[in-house]
């Protein structure tokens, strides 16, 4: 039977483009022949704006890049500033920001899994269960810094305020409850026949392809590459922490889901270890000035953000604002593989694959 190709424009306004992503997709019936991603609908010029602001003010810009993971964005930026200006952070500040970063990873992975299952067509139920857990983390953040999404918690040298007394019992309660909630989620989703049928052997990403495309984060680990910057290139105090790195065996959508789910469990363990090691003390060294004035030079510190390797390349000309700021955004680089992954699969797989890559358009376009 002769068929005619249909070219369709999906997005930027579409229920499952996770923001304002646009694709020009060519179908042969239900099969995808070509998928061209078109980005730039959420470009706000964050990198250029950073050149007009002091080093501390830029923290608020980083919040708005990957808005599901503000804490890790702050962390990546602050680590780069600290290296640039040679600030030694205070111990308690580092532990606090590690706790914040791992909680943020749990929140971001919850969102990623929830929306992936939503793209599979489960009518919001698993998503809302996961968002309920995320809500508890956001409440913890609110205790820490007064904000839920755009935290701006970190400062050069540590964090801007200590967590209040009521934070610690709440955190312990969350750590006690979360494994049970994860078991519930696993019972509902992991062995679900429909989810297995929909995600297994779909959009398989080979190890070599992933490395060649410089894919990072859970997506790379789902393809079986043991690459986690917290382990390979420890920043903050991650070398004092022991944790396991879940790896996928095949590299399909199901593995990307499983890796994220198990990383949530590992993050819980990391937070528990941080709680054992944290000691009272100042959260920020006294000698860090209000206006950081790094010497001329450049710095880049990559960190393991929930979506992959995130790093801020900062160039200083000795002034109070960065001379140049460039962000290595994991979402953007992971997204480049979408086209190669979905060709030959069905329409429905396109959205599942897009969900499994877990991009955030705020970070892709910046």
């Amino acid at each position, binding site marked *: 039977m002769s068929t005619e190709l249909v070219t369709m424009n999906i997005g930027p306004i*579409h229920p499952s483009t996770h923001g304002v992503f646009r694709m020009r997709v060519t*179908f042969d019936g239900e099969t995808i022949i070509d998928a061209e991603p078109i980005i730039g609908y959420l470009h706000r010029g964050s990198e250029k704006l950073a050149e007009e602001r002091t080093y501390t003010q830029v923290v608020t810009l980083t919040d708005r890049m990957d808005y599901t993971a503000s804490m890790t964005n702050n962390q990546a930026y602050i680590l780069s500033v600290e290296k640039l200006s040679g600030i030694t952070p205070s111990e308690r500040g580092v532990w606090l920001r590690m706790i914040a970063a791992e909680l943020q990873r749990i929140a971001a992975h919850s969102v990623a899994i929830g929306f992936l299952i939503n793209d599979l*067509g489960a009518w919001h139920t698993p998503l809302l269960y996961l968002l309920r857990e995320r809500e508890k983390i956001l409440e913890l953040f609110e205790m820490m810094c007064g904000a839920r999404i755009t935290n701006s918690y970190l400062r050069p040298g540590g964090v801007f305020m200590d967590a209040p007394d009521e934070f610690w019992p709440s955190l312990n309660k969350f750590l006690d409850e979360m494994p049970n909630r994860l078991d519930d989620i696993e019972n509902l989703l992991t*062995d679900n026949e429909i989810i297995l049928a929909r995600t297994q052997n779909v959009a398989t990403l080979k190890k070599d392809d992933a490395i060649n495309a410089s894919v990072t984060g859970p997506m790379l680990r789902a393809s079986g590459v043991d690459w*986690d910057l917290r*382990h390979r290139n420890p920043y903050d105090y991650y070398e004092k922490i022991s944790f396991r*790195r*879940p790896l996928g065996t095949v590299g399909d959508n199901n*593995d990307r889901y499983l890796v994220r789910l198990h990383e949530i469990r590992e993050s819980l363990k990391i937070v528990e270890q941080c709680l054992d090691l944290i000691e009272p003390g100042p959260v920020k060294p006294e000698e860090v000035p209000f206006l950081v004035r790094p010497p001329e030079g450049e710095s880049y510190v990559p960190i393991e953000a929930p979506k992959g390797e995130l790093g801020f390349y900062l160039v200083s000309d000795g002034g109070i604002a960065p001379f140049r700021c460039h962000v290595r955004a994991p979402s953007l680089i992971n997204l480049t593989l979408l086209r190669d992954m979905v060709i030959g699969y069905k329409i*429905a797989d396109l959205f599942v694959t897009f969900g499994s890559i877990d991009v955030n358009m705020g970070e892709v376009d910046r």
Partner: protein
Amino acid sequence: MGPVRESFIFEFLYCHLSLEASCSSVRVLNIAFIPENLSWISFILTAFFWIFVFINAALVGVLALIWGERRLIGKFQARLGPNRWGPLGLFTPVADAIKVMFKEDIEPTLSDKLIYVLAPILMVVPVFMIFPVIPYGAKTFLTNISVGVVFVLAITSINSLSVLMAGWASGNRFAIIGGIRAVAMLLSYEIPMGISAAGVVIVAGSLSLSEVVNNQVIPNAIFQPLGFITFLVASTAELNRSPFDITEAESELVAGYMTDYSSMKFGLFYLGEFMATIASSAIIVTFYFSGWRGPTFIPSEIWFLAKWIGVIAIFIWFRATFPRLRIDQIMSLAWKGLFELSLINILVLALMIAIWPDPSGMQLLLMTLINWVVFFLSIYIFGKILSPNLTGNKIKKRSVIYGLD
């Protein structure tokens, strides 16, 4: 004037209007005034009255279902559901209906105007025709047509035409993909649905819905579980409900065939879908849950209503739980799974009815036992041996490995 006169509720009203001689035994109050030679007037008046009642009852039922579904799914999803308008949010669907009516009515430039307007009407009107033939109680039914089973199956399949018309006429690519998916899926699921219903007919020995209920000593859901499961899955697909909601797949096709519809045209689609859910549930109750039958200390209408709400709740439960299947998996499930299962069901039933044409109580229990054995065996075999073929790829449970230090 045919089968309508068999209906008690019809006859009751008719006899209070017409002075017909045969009516005197039914009449309770002597208020009839239309002479016998003008009985067609009383017939039309009665008919219009009941049409009015049934249509409005169906519409109120839809409002109740919308409210119930949103409340129940709210509970499933650990949130409140609608609770602002009226007590327990009861007026929310009314507010929704008013809102839908006052929205701007958009007709896309590329649309085929006539078909575009006809499609939503075709979605709603046939569903109204199912309600009069359902026996709601021992005496409460409007008409008992002798081919009721065939009639309801025929009427419920009209909506696939409407979906295709809507998809085609919109001139939108999301819509046309939704429409084409709908035709492929709905036509495929007609077949297991019809064959399963044949099992019901074999047991009842009649195509009349009243007879189907009368002859169900053991509810068919227990008596022929295989037929029940295939019919339930097939009607879920027929209703475009999750996990078979590929025609309007929100995360893929925005709203599928009704992407370009707005205002009351969209409202009609919405109405049609919810009304089809109600109608299909009534059919399932009649076919598989022995309709209005139940211990007599509760009126038969109440039994029917309780079972009806129960079946609707099953559909809502499905929607809150399952992710969606892909189009090729849905087609495989119809042709490689449900089709064979329904054939096995009808084969076993036909053999047993041939051996015991008029079964006694013990024989009925034995037949039920055999049916359950067949049920478990066939589900096991299809699950283990054919399941990799069903979904298109070999699935197996997996876990992660951990990186070595």
